[in-house]
């Protein structure tokens, strides 16, 4: 549906996108995630023909949008876009939603039922005659979504649609996105800096970093086997340990900060790697407890910090390198953990994902 090939964009000589390549399939929900300023908005604006790329090719349904300029209006009319900042026209809610239809020359008789239906879908039935400017941010964003939907676009682009909204509005918009995709088969591309939103909604995720896709994959792939150290950090992997691969008893291991960590899959000896270990996969046991099962990494250490996080506590242990795990409060009490406690941190080699060091 959308093909990107080496898409570049510069603003006043400053590079924002430096070669984005990827494709979005028909009927797919594709999330562009990345830190603020990574170029997510720019990428969506290029796809929607609001800006022109400095280089590279964008094809929408096979049409090269830079070459076939004559088609740009018809290509743009295949797409709808919702922007980060909720913005409404200074008129009634119903007229706001009707704008796209009116641009396409729809008659009043055709406009009304469609607007009513769209209002109903976004949960704003009965709001039609209200002045759009008087709505809350969440309501305005739903109007924006209805406005983009009512033209029945084949592609719906959403640039951080929930960035400034309260949690209830976020949940409403998210369920609408899933419904639109499921019921209408609309291809949806949205950007977010909230990786969990990407995980909740998307079939596939593109991680945009430093102006290019550092990784494109299913949410599961991105969250469990990040392609680079930076992606790992962005998707919330707290334990990233840098080291060098060494041979050990025929099994490869990584030496880092005076400790050795076994991992399921490693490159050849001498390679510099970053080990990513999700904090959920770490177990903490008292130092005098029974030994960990053979094969498991077991690293003795001293608790250096216990920081509350919601109903859990984040426990950091210095094992030569600092490793953090997340435990329930009760578990922390049961183990009688406090700063200075001697413990053993254990984890399976399969929980260790190695990426090339940056």
């Amino acid at each position, binding site marked *: 549906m959308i093909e990107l090939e080496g898409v570049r964009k510069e603003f006043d000589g400053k590079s924002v996108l430096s070669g984005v390549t990827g494709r979005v399939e028909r009927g797919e929900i594709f999330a562009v995630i990345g830190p603020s300023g990574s170029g997510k908005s720019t990428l969506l*604006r290029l796809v*929607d*023909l*609001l800006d022109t790329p400095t280089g590279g090719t964008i094809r929408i349904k096979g049409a090269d949008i830079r070459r076939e300029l004559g088609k740009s*209006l018809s290509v*743009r*009319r295949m*797409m*709808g*876009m919702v*922007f980060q*900042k909720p*913005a409404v*026209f*200074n008129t009634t809610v119903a007229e706001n939603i009707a*704008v*796209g239809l009116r*641009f*396409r020359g729809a008659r009043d008789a055709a406009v009304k039922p469609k607007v009513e239906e769209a209002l109903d879908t976004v949960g704003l039935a009965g709001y039609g005659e209200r002045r759009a400017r008087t709505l809350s941010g969440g309501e305005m964003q739903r109007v*924006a979504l209805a*406005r*983009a939907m009512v*033209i029945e676009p084949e592609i719906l*682009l959403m640039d951080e649609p929930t960035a400034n909204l309260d949690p209830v509005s976020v949940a409403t918009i998210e369920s609408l996105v899933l419904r639109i995709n499921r019921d209408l088969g609309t291809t949806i591309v949205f950007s977010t800096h909230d990786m969990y939103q990407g995980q909740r909604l998307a079939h596939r995720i593109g991680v945009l970093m430093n102006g290019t896709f550092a990784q494109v994959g299913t949410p599961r792939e991105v969250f469990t086997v990040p392609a680079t150290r930076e992606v790992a950090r962005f998707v919330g992997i707290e334990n990233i340990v840098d080291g060098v691969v060494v041979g050990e008893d025929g099994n490869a291991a990584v030496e880092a900060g005076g400790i050795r960590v076994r991992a399921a899959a490693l490159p050849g000896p001498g390679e510099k790697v970053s080990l990513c270990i999700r904090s959920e996969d770490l177990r903490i046991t008292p130092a005098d407890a029974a030994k960990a099962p053979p094969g498991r990494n077991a690293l003795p250490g001293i608790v250096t910090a216990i920081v509350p996080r919601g109903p859990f506590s984040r426990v950091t242990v210095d094992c030569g390198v600092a490793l953090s795990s997340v435990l329930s409060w009760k578990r922390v009490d049961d183990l009688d953990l406090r700063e200075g406690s001697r413990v053993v941190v254990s984890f399976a080699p399969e929980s260790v994902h190695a990426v090339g060091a940056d």
Partner: protein
Amino acid sequence: MYEIIEGIIEAARLIVTLDPDVMAISARSIVISLTATVVATLVAVPLGAAIYFGTFPGKKSLINLIQTLYSLPTVIVGLLIFLLLSRVGPFGFFRLLFTPTAMIIAQTVLILPIMTGLTISALSGVDPVIRDTLRSLGATRFQFLKSVMKEARFAILAAVAVGFGRAISEVGAAILVGGNIMASSFASSTRVLTTAISLETSMGNISQSIALGIILLVIALAVNLVITTIQHR
């Protein structure tokens, strides 16, 4: 002090009894300035839009120039129009000098820059997200222009109100090209509120001046009220 109080009382009487002279001068003021505002609107709004939406070299300098002309001295405009319309001037043969038409021309010229400039500001004031939204909804070039203008309508109306306010309160151009004539017929007279105040004051008719001044203030107040109401929408 006593004279001033007496003047105010007399002014109130002139207004309350709808004194024919006072009413005629007020009505003429409104008609002339309103006509100038309508003409200026017809020129300034499309011109402002053309400048704002257009891309051409020197655009920034042009906008700067227009903004400088906001404070165009009214007597300078008066002098310019006087020279153009005087019998030796290039448009002398129209015989327009010292007619209400001459005043309308002068006031139009006077308020054109500020109305054009404020139209440009009104259009720049439209949220960029609104402009992106219009384009993403598939607007043609014409639909886009129309919709942005529509979105700026209240700010453009405010620009019109500012223009009218400047037109009705100026005295320099009105006296130079109008001549402050009180003729037998309404249409051939050129005495308006500002020129009348100037004359009556110099002749010592304080109460007449105060009455006309109050009316002028009320009109200015009404215009201001319109602007604030508009801007709160």
